[in-house]
């Protein structure tokens, strides 16, 4: 069975991609295609994690940071858009880099949804938080990310982007009504939620940034984790 696993998986993937494309072209039905595209976006980074020789210390570090991010979501469960996850993912990515940031964000989404309930939104959240980590890691060397205000602006912008990307999975079920008017009204409806997320990002980042970056950097140095080549 183990020998056939990969060919079978590849065949299945090709089959599903073909189905999704047919559905999109034939019936302009995009739900399946969107899931396939998300899968394609998530796949290379997880495959990178699988292929690369990784120290057990690094693996455990990633697990701890994802778990802290997931736990931080629990006390704020009652407030719909206040999620410290984004701030924690940004800080981790700032210290440990893009790839680590992506994994932490995606795993935090998956794990916290085991407590909050999985749904069609899980892959979207994995994608969003993964992308927050990835972009924060990419930009960590730039001068404005090093400035505290730059990082706060980054968090603020991603608060809105997160909401906008999450709106897509809802808009996709209205393929025919799709027009700029609909998009605008959907984004106006979600404005306060997005604003709450953006503001809470700024608050959490400004509270956490100094202390956490110091702690994480000390760990990176002390144990030689995920060093830049």
């Amino acid at each position, binding site marked *: 069975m*183990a020998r056939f*696993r990969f060919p079978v*998986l590849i065949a299945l993937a090709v089959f*599903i991609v073909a*189905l999704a494309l*047919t*559905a999109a072209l034939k*019936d302009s*039905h995009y*739900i*399946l295609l969107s*899931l396939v595209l998300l899968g394609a976006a998530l796949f290379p980074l*997880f495959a990178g*994690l*699988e292929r690369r*020789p*990784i*120290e*057990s*210390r690094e*693996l*455990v*570090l*990633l*697990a*701890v940071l*994802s*778990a*802290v991010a*997931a*736990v*931080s979501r*629990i006390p704020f469960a009652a407030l719909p858009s206040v999620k410290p996850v984004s701030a924690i993912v940004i800080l981790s990515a700032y210290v440990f880099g893009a790839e680590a940031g992506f*994994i932490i964000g995606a*795993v*935090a989404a*998956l*794990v*916290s949804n*085991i*407590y909050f*309930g*999985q*749904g*069609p939104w899980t892959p979207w959240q994995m994608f969003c938080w993964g992308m927050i980590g990835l972009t924060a890691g990419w930009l960590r060397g730039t001068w404005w990310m090093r400035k505290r205000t730059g990082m706060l602006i980054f968090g603020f912008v991603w608060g809105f982007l997160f909401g906008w990307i999450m709106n897509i999975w*809802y808009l996709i*079920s*209205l393929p*025919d*009504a*799709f*027009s700029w*008017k*609909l998009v605008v009204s959907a984004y106006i409806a979600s404005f306060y939620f997005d604003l709450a997320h953006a503001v809470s990002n700024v608050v959490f980042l400004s*509270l*956490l940034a100094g*202390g*956490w970056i110091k*702690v994480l950097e000390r*760990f990176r140095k002390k144990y030689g984790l995920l060093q830049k080549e």
Partner: protein
Amino acid sequence: MSSGFRSMHPTVAIVYYAGLVLFAALLFHPVYLMTELIGVLGLLLLQGQGKTLLRGLPFYLLMAGSVAVLNPFFSHRGSNILFYFMDQPVTLEAILYGLMMMLVLLTILIVFVSYNYTVTTDKFMYLFSSVAPKSALLTLMSLRFVPLFQRRLRQITEIQRTRGIDTSKGSVRKRMKDGMTLLKVLLTWSLEEALQTADSMKARGYGVSKRSSYANYKMDRQDIFVLVMLVVSGLIPLLGWLQGYGTMQIYPRLKPLEYTWQEAVVYASFCLFVLIPSGLEGKEKWIWRSSQRTGYPSAIPMKPGTRFMSSRSR
């Protein structure tokens, strides 16, 4: 207690739920969608999940219902104009399309309620540990850390209270600062301890050779039988869909549904796919009930036990 469909091999469950989501996204046909919705609702009720369903239902209805309301006001395609709303035509086709999309969303959301009950996290991890061992280990570890960290955070809160660091007293500013102190302690403590875990993993030889995975699920004859049934009965509607069955054309002009014998075959096969787990669940309920009735001896000499009694993964 797990019984019936829930105690089957994880592969069977994942094939079933993947099939349900796939069909909900592909088969754009009211009869098929209603069948799937009713089938999944029946399965949920048989699994005793009525309460969980009721708790989430208002949210699902709101989410799916808004699609049905929004579509006719933003989409003006279709030839049967019913009335004008703010100078915009509202067409019969757009209303029907919105209702169909509502069904699609509702079905997918409710499939996930059943999925959350049937495919528990350990089963999900079992399926992925052989394909992506590192990601699965990572997820599993962080999953295990969540309750641990919650417990730890409570301990830290109690200890720090003696130093006056308390999130329930003082100004908002002080309380937030105190909250962040608690989180920082949690982070340092957990990282320090987790890295010891990592060293101990390394000392035991993690990463030296290819990781083997322990399987505590065995495919028995019933699992294989049900899996084959699901695959066969699922492939027929899929092939039928590629031939153009199981969809309804709404735009640009509503087409009446056609009933042919090919369509009937496809539909019957689809029904079989949707209802197999409910059938299993119902069968177990029935056997259990009849095994309770000792006052009325059964004509069958050897009463078959439920799957819960014979299953080996207890």
